[in-house]
C-alpha cells in the first residue's frame, strides 16, 4: 500500500505519511482523490436508480395503465397485475427528481470534481481538512442509504414532488407517501445538506488558502472558479433549505403551524392555524433556484476547461467568463420567486422577479458566445470529452432560450407546471449538467484511475445520447404548449389531450433507448477501471497542474516539491512556442509577455 511512499522522495511538509490499511485507503480515506472516486461511484449508482425510475414512469405515460412485466418485477405490490399504481407513479417522479438533482448532479458532479480537481489544479497536497472531507462523503453516503431505504416503506416513499410542498407533504392522510416515506426523505435531505455544507466550506477554504506559489486568482483554471463560486452559493442557500426541512419536521411531528392553516381533510378539521404554505415555497426556492446553478456552474467550469484544451486555444474571454460566473451566482440568489408567480404572492413581487430573472440571460449569453468563439479557428481534438462539451453548449442554448418565456411572469401563467417546464429544465440543467459530468469523466478518467476509457464506446455513447436527449425533450415543449400538465398519472381522462398521446409514445421510446445506451457507458467505465489502456501522464496535452502529477496516485499528489506557477492556464498554441501548449509550470521566456487578460 505504502510502496510508492517509500520509492518516491517526499518533501518534508507532508511527512505525516503513515502506513495505510485497506480501510484507511479505500473506505475511510482522507485523500481527496479517493474521496472523489467514492463520490463518483456513489453518484453513479444513484444515477442508475434515478434513470431506471424515469424509464418506468415514461412507460406509464406512453402506455397508461397497461400491464407491464417490468413494473410487476420491480414494483411488486405497487403494480398489481403489472399495472402501475397512481401513488407509486407520483413517488417515482418525486424520487427521480430528488435523486437526480441532489444525489447525482450536486454530490455526484460537484463532489467528484471539486474534490479531484481543487487540490490538483491549485497545487495543494490535499484539501484544507481531509477529515472534514471524509466526514462529508460519509454523510452523503448515509443520506443516500436512507433515501434508498425510504423506497421500501410500507405506505410508500415520498410522493409530493421533489419540491415537497406542504400541506401535501405534511399530512399522511393527504397521501400515503407523506408518512414514514416523507420522514425518511427529510432526514436524508437534512444529512445531505450537512454533507454538502462541510464539503463547500472545505472547497472555499482550500481555494483561498492553499494555492501554490504564483497561482493568483486570475491564473486559476475556470474549473476552480466555478467550484469556488458554487461552494459559496451552496453555503449561502443550503442552510435555508435545512431550516425549511426542520420547520416542516416540526409541523409534521410536533404539531406546530409554520406552513399549515385551516385544513379540513377526510372529514375532520385539523388544529393548524396561521401558517402559510407560501412561506415554505419561499424557503424552498431560496435554495431551490440557486441549486440549479449549483448544478450547472461546475459543469460550465469543466466544459470551459475541456473546450480550451481540446480546441488547442485559450478559452475566449477569460475575464468575462469569471465575471459571468460571478454575475450568475449573484443573480441566482435573487430570482427564486419566478417559481412562484402564481403561488398567490403579491403580483408586484412577481414583476421584480421577472426583471431579475431575465437579467440572468445576459451573463448566460456571454458564456455561450464565448464558448462558440473558443471553437473558432481552433484545432479541435474530437475526444469524447470534447463532444460532450459541445453537446453541453448545444443543450444549454436550446434549454436556456425557453427560460425567457418561463421567466416572463405574464407567459408563465399559462405554461407553469406544464411539460414545457419539464422540457426547459431537463435540457438546461439536467441534460447539460449530465453532459458536463460525462465530459469531466471522459477527460479526467486517466487522472482518477490511471487508465483510459475506450474512445469508440465514448463516441457511441455520446451520439446516441445526444440524439435521444433531443428526441425526448424537444417534442416535450410542444405538448407543454398544448397545455398538458406535468405529474399526471395518465392523460386518458382528458379527451382534449388525446392527440398528444402519440407524441408521448415517441418521447418514451427515445427515453428508453437513451436510458439503455447508458449501459455502454457503465460498461466502459467499470471495465476500464481494471482493464483500460494504461494512461500516459498528460494524455490530452493540457497546461494545468493536475497533469504534472504522476499517473500512479500518491498521498500528497507531487513526489517532490509542489510546482510553482508562472502563467495562466490557457497558453494553448501561443505564438513563439514550438509545442501547442505551455504548461503553467513553465516560466515565461525572456521578453515573453503574460497575456494581459
Amino acid at each position, binding site marked *: 500500500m505504502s510502496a510508492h511512499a517509500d520509492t518516491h522522495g517526499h518533501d518534508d511538509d507532508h511527512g505525516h505519511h503513515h502506513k495505510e490499511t485497506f480501510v484507511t485507503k479505500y473506505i475511510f480515506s482522507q485523500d481527496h482523490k479517493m474521496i472523489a472516486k467514492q463520490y463518483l461511484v456513489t453518484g453513479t449508482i444513484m444515477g442508475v436508480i434515478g434513470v431506471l425510475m424515469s424509464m418506468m414512469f415514461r412507460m406509464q405515460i406512453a402506455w397508461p395503465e397497461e400491464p407491464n*412485466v417490468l413494473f410487476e418485477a420491480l414494483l411488486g405490490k405497487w403494480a398489481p397485475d403489472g399495472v402501475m399504481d397512481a401513488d407509486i407513479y407520483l413517488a417515482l417522479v418525486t424520487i427521480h427528481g430528488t435523486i437526480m438533482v441532489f444525489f447525482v448532479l450536486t454530490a455526484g458532479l460537484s463532489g467528484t470534481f471539486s474534490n479531484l480537481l481543487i487540490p490538483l489544479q491549485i497545487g495543494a497536497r490535499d484539501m484544507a481538512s481531509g477529515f472534514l472531507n471524509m466526514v462529508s462523503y460519509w454523510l452523503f453516503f448515509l443520506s443516500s442509504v436512507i433515501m434508498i431505504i425510504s423506497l421500501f416503506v410500507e405506505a410508500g416513499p415520498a410522493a409530493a414532488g421533489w419540491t415537497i410542498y406542504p*400541506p401535501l407533504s405534511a399530512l399522511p392522510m393527504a397521501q400515503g407517501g407523506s408518512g414514514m416515506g416523507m420522514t425518511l426523505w427529510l432526514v436524508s435531505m437534512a444529512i445531505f445538506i450537512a454533507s454538502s455544507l462541510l464539503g463547500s466550506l472545505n472547497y472555499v477554504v482550500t481555494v483561498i488558502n492553499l494555492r501554490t506559489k504564483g497561482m493568483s486568482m486570475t491564473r486559476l483554471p475556470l474549473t476552480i472558479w466555478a467550484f469556488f463560486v458554487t461552494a459559496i452559493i451552496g453555503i449561502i442557500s443550503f442552510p435555508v433549505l435545512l431550516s425549511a426541512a426542520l420547520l416542516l419536521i416540526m409541523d409534521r411531528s410536533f404539531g406546530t403551524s409554520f406552513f399549515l392553516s385551516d385544513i379540513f381533510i377526510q372529514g375532520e*378539521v385539523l388544529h393548524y392555524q396561521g401558517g402559510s404554505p407560501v412561506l415554505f415555497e419561499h424557503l424552498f426556492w431560496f435554495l431551490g433556484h440557486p441549486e440549479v446553478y449549483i448544478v450547472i456552474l461546475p459543469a460550465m467550469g469543466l466544459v470551459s476547461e475541456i473546450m480550451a484544451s481540446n480546441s488547442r486555444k485559450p478559452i475566449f474571454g*477569460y475575464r468575462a467568463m469569471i465575471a459571468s460566473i460571478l454575475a450568475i451566482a449573484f443573480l441566482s440568489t435573487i430570482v427564486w420567486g419566478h417559481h412562484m408567480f402564481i403561488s398567490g404572492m403579491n403580483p408586484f413581487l412577481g414583476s421584480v422577479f*421577472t426583471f431579475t430573472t431575465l437579467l440572468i440571460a445576459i451573463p448566460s449569453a456571454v458564456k455561450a458566445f464565448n464558448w462558440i468563439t473558443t471553437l473558432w479557428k481552433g484545432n*479541435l481534438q474530437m*475526444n469524447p470529452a470534447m463532444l460532450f462539451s459541445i453537446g453541453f453548449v448545444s443543450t444549454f442554448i436550446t434549454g436556456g432560450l425557453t427560460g425567457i418565456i418561463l421567466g416572463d411572469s405574464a407567459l408563465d401563467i399559462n405554461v*407553469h407546471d406544464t411539460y414545457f417546464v419539464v422540457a426547459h429544465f431537463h435540457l438546461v440543467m439536467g441534460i447539460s449538467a449530465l453532459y458536463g459530468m460525462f465530459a469531466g469523466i471522459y477527460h479526467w478518467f486517466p487522472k482518477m484511475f490511471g487508465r483510459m476509457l475506450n474512445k469508440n464506446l465514448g463516441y457511441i455513447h455520446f451520439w446516441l445520447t445526444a440524439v435521444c436527449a433531443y428526441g425526448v425533450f424537444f417534442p416535450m415543449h410542444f405538448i407543454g404548449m398544448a397545455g398538458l400538465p406535468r405529474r399526471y398519472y395518465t392523460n386518458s381522462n382528458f379527451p382534449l389531450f388525446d392527440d398528444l398521446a402519440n407524441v408521448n409514445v415517441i418521447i418514451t421510446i427515445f427515453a428508453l433507448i437513451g436510458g439503455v445506451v447508458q449501459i455502454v457507458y457503465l460498461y466502459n467505465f467499470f471495465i476500464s477501471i481494471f482493464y483500460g*489502456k494504461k494512461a500516459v501522464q498528460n494524455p490530452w496535452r493540457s497546461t494545468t497542474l493536475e497533469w504534472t502529477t504522476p499517473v500512479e496516485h500518491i498521498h500528497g499528489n507531487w513526489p517532490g516539491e509542489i510546482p510553482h506557477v508562472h502563467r495562466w492556464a490557457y497558453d494553448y498554441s501561443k505564438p513563439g512556442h514550438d509545442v501547442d501548449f505551455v504548461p503553467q509550470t513553465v516560466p515565461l521566456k525572456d521578453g515573453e509577455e503574460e497575456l494581459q487578460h
Partner: protein
Amino acid sequence: MTALLTIIVLVFILIAIWQMVKIFDLAQAKGGSDTSGVATDKDNTMNGYLMMGFLGFIYAITIVSLVKWGDLPLMSNSASEHGPTVDNLMVISMVIIFFVQTVTQFLLHYFAFKYKGEKGKKALFFADNNKLEAIWTIIPVIVLAGLIIYGLNTWINIMGVDESDDPLVVELYAQQFNWKARYAGADNTLGKANVRLIDIDRANILGLDEADPNAQDDIITTELHLPVGKPVLFKMRSQDVLHSAYMPHFRAQMNCVPGMITQFGFTPTVTTADMRLTPEMQEKVTRINKIRVENSKPLVAKGEEPLERYEFDYLLLCNKICGKSHYNMQMKIVVETQEEYDAWIKEQKEFKNSLIN
C-alpha cells in the same frame, strides 16, 4: 406486451451497438493507428461530419415538431380579453428564440466541423476581444429590455383587478380531488367562510358562515358557468392541500392555498358554442375523434363500451400536484350568453335552501 416488445427491441439495439464497437476496434487494429484513447485525425474528421449531421437533426426535429404539433392551442384561440396580448408576447418571444437557436446552433456545429483537428495544424491564439464581447453583451441587454418592458406591462394588466368594472365574483373551491364553484348571488358579495364551519351532516360543504347575511344567497355548483363579455373575479380557496386552478383557454392560472384566499380575474370573450364552431377547433375535434374511434376498436373487440365521442368544452384543470387522483381533478367551464347564464343560475339552489336541517 408493448413493454416486452420494447425490451426486445432495446436488447437488439444493444447487440447492434456491440457489433459496431467490434468493427470499430477491428478496423483500428488493422490500420495500426493510435489506440491510446486519444482522438486521431480520423476521429476528428468522422465526428466533425457527425456534428454537421447532428445540426441537420436538430433542424429536422424542430421542423417536424412545428409541422406536426405546431398548432399550439396556447398561442392561438384564446378565449379571454387579455388572451391575445399574452399570445402576442408569446409569439414575439418564440420568434426571437427560434432565430437565436437557429443561428447559434449553426455556428456551434459548423465551427465544430470546420475546425476539426489535423496533425500539424496550429490553432489561432485568440484570447480576448473587448469589442466582440461588448457587442454580445449589449445586444442581449437591448432585446431583454424590450421583453421585460413588454412582459411587465402585460403582467400588470392581467393581475390588476379593476373593481370599478363591477366584476362577477366567483369562488373556486378546491379539495382532493374535485372543484366547486360558489357564486355570490344577487348581492355579488361572497359570504364569510372557513373550513372550521364545514358541517357535512347539514350539507354545509364549503364551510359557509350560516349567520352571515351575505352567505344566504350564495350558490354552490359543480360546473362553472360564465356569461360572455362580463369580467369575472375568481377568489380561490382550498380546504386541504395546494391545488392550482388552470384554465388554459383563458390564459389563466392561480394556486389555491389552504389558509388564504388568492385571486385572478379575466373576461371571457368566446362562448363555448362559438368556440366549437371555429375551424381550428372543429379540425382538432375531428382529429381527436378519429383517434378515439381507433382506440375504441380493441375495447369493442373485448366486449367493452367504446369511448365516448369528444365534444369541445372549456376546462378547469388542477395543475399542482395534490395526491393520488391529481390526474383527474377537473371541472367543466361553460361560457354562454347572459340570458343563458341567467336562466342557468336561476335553476341553482341558494345556500339557505340547500342546507339540511
